């Protein structure tokens, strides 16, 4: 160069960790650090720790397991350091202890769902029994305060397959990645989505055999299984996208996993499908913005508080759910201050995390107690379990509220 010095054109590092300026904003907004002093916090666990781990893997710190992977650190980071990814990938790469039986059970949402469905009433009755809860607490270290979501006797996939023909008549089509919760536990949410989309003149198709997105497998370090699911899902998503379909979803965490975690944590390339995967609230909001109309009931009335799930916030899409809810006549909306509910999927089910989990959620719970809404709206099923268990307020997906508000 003319000025006699060779500048580096750019620098790069794993998950941008070298771009950390140590401003510590992530630490200030980490919900875990505020309640659990054993956790070193996102800055130390992430970019600071990475330099030490590169020096010697022995500097891996077991307490990284306390990270919720809520990704609030990434939302706040002004330098685009992927702090949570750094922490999760360090856990996947350096933690060599084999995952516990309990963690495997909690993570195997697909497998457990298939197993439980035929005997759903029995499973539901048993997992609800105080004696069974005590047994799981003692033997598996699944906290006794938790109640497992009820299994449905009939799956959503079964329901929609029987309606294939009536869905096919719509000129416009989308594919629906429903996830484990809708399929095995709460098909009603899927049915609600079908109702709303049909009202917009859109038919709903299943993917060609989706599997669990794998987020629970990732957070319980079952990398091999998670990667297998990821590859499978990318291939069935590709099929749908190639045939010109958009893919809609109703779970913010599944969505974040399909879009972000596959390439980032599992090294599975999803570039061909990523941009076609949308939360249903965004898809519907954009349709309404473009002039589509929904037949709203005149007599609908509800006081609703919207809780933005952490992963929805990471996607940057909370605004779509919020705006959509505001379009519903008769819906009185309060948007809650952003706060993590503390459950983070399987995290809160583990006995050792129960207290942390509840302490984190308190900020949200106290807001709800003050507002006393009729219903809490939220795009995430595990937030729903946590809020319902901890406050007693019923929680509904915005899509279900929308369905209820339609004629």
């Amino acid at each position, binding site marked *: 160069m003319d*000025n*006699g*010095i*060779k*500048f*580096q*054109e*750019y*620098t*790069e*590092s794993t998950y941008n*960790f*070298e*771009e*950390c*300026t*140590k*401003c*510590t904003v992530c630490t200030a907004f980490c919900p875990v650090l505020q309640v659990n002093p054993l956790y*070193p916090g996102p*800055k*130390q666990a992430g*970019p*600071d*720790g*990475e*330099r*030490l781990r*590169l*020096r*010697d893997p*022995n*500097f891996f*710190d*077991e*307490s990284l397991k306390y990270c919720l992977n809520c990704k609030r650190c990434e939302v706040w980071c002004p*330098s685009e350091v992927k702090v949570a990814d750094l922490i999760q990938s360090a856990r996947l790469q350096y933690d060599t202890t084999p995952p516990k039986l309990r963690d495997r059970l909690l993570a195997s949402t697909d497998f457990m769902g298939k197993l439980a469905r035929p005997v759903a009433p029995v499973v539901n009755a048993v997992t609800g029994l105080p004696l069974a809860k005590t047994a799981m607490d003692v033997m598996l270290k699944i906290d006794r305060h938790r109640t497992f979501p009820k299994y449905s006797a009939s799956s959503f996939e079964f329901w929609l397959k029987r309606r294939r023909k009536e869905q096919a008549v719509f000129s416009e089509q989308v594919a629906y990645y429903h996830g484990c919760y809708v399929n095995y536990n709460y098909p009603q949410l899927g049915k609600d989505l079908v109702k709303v989309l049909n009202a917009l003149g859109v038919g709903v198709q299943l993917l060609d055999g989706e599997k669990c997105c794998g987020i629970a497998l990732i957070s319980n370090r079952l990398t091999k299984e998670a990667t297998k699911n990821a590859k499978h899902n990318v291939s069935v998503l590709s099929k749908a996208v190639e045939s010109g379909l958009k893919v809609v979803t109703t779970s913010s965490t599944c969505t974040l996993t399909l879009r972000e975690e596959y390439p980032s944590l599992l090294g599975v390339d999803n570039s061909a499908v990523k941009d076609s995967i949308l939360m249903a609230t965004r898809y519907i909001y954009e349709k309404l913005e473009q002039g589509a109309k929904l037949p709203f009931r005149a007599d609908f009335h509800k006081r609703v508080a919207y809780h933005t799930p952490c992963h929805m916030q990471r996607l940057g899409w909370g605004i779509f759910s919020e705006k959509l809810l505001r379009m519903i006549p008769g819906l009185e909306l309060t948007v809650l201050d952003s706060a993590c509910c503390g459950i983070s999927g399987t995290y809160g089910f583990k006995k050792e995390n129960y207290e942390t989990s509840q302490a984190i959620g308190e900020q949200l719970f106290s807001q709800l107690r003050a507002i006393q809404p009729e219903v809490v709206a939220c795009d995430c099923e595990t937030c729903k379990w946590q809020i319902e268990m901890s406050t007693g307020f019923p929680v509904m997906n915005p899509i279900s509220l929308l369905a209820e508000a339609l004629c």
Partner: protein
Amino acid sequence: MNPNEFDVIIIGGGITGAGTQRDCAMRGLRTLLVDRSDIATGATGRNHGLLHSGARYAVNDPESAAECIRENMILRRVAAHCIDESDGLFVTLPEDDLDYQKSFVQACRDAGIRADIIDPDLARRLEPAVNPDIIGAVRVPDCSVDPFRLCAANMLDAKLHGGQVRLQTEVTGIIKEGNTVKGIRTHNRNTGEDLDFYAPIVVNASGVWGQEIAQMAGVKVGMFPAKGSLLIFAHRVNNMVINRCRKPSNADILVPGDTVCIVGTTSSRIPLEECRNVAVTPDEVTLLITEGIKLAPRLSSTRILRAYAGVRPLVSADDDPSGRNISRGIVCLDHETRDGIKGFITITGGKLTSYRLMAEMATDMVCKKLGIDKACETAITPLPGSEEGSYEEVAKKIWENPTVAQKAAAARMGSRVARIRSGDRRDEALICECEQVSMGEINAAIDRLEASTLTDLRRRTRVGMGTCQGEFCACRAAGLLAKAHGCIEKERADIDFFLQERWKGNFPIGWGDTLREAEYTQWVYKHVLGI
């Protein structure tokens, strides 16, 4: 006994001086070491931190090479906590002559250095950061060493053996009676106090400044100051030392050390007057990046943390304009036989790897003059901190479930880390988050390792050496110093100096993330703290 009288006075707190004081003290002598600033401020702290296997010198300087490998093996035992047994590669690039490898390996073997030719594929697996285009690779027992830690451990052991250390103490004159050196005149730069100290032997171990000290004693030692510049990258890209397998040249060694890696060096002769204030030039930065990329291509896009330069204390022997071919051999001068000046010894030349041998040679000479017959034990007695096994074992012995900071402290202090364990949880508070330095470790350095400024603390604990370059740790550590000294005003000036010095290292490579972070540091100190 007069408190100003000693058996031997050592001038210079670099590794040679500290090593010599330790050796003398272990042989029962009453010792005093003085330095005009701090320990390890000269060449000791301004190099790669490479514990040579000797391979680099094998072809041109077989004597130095043999010395290196002997000392390398000794130091692995006695200075274990300062050394990372990383091993090294000598790689041949397509543009290099592969024939050189043969003579190189033969020369290594002749010098007693294990040198295994390995398949380039194996080399790429062992060290994924190495240039994938290599056509040849030789594995040698290179290590990395922390020179600050090594120097501090020597000083500490000398003190444990009754030695006295006076830092910030400048030698203003050599006291002579006729042709016999009797002691030194000093000026304390902190307190302004002028004191004389007496000893029958004065050892000049002041590196490149040895010429000035020798002049004060009325003898001539011609130094050949050769500047070498280096770049520190912000994290490790390699875990093995990577060298070019060719005649030693510019920027052909990449050393992993602690949390960083360092590429260097350049070599150019500079006038003696410039030695105290060497700066890295744009040309040198360009050269280091261009050549460094050939060792490990990843360096082209790896954040650079600092640039720095040191001056090799070579003793001039011939007309080589670069200094590259001067022997790195040890020069131990008895000025009684050489110049007729009694009681004065100069120990210089050599290198970090051979410091212990240099100290042994100087101490042998001191003992002979004093008529003391005691064998050197520095080759068998571990330095304080190196008595026990690996840092993980050390940490586990002290803490049931050591934290990252406790492990990092054990890696820095070795077995001495037991001292920072206290019942007080405040001691676990982190001062430096990048390098994980706790309050306990900082206080231990203030109490035991003669640290009186932030820069002193940095050399002893790595505080401020991480990517934030003092952004958060400087004010925290300054608080502890202010408490220890009972003086806040002095600490304000100290922070200022420390941050300026950090910026001096950032400036030559002031772009990208390092510039962003320096800007942020400026906001914090100037606009938030008002400093």
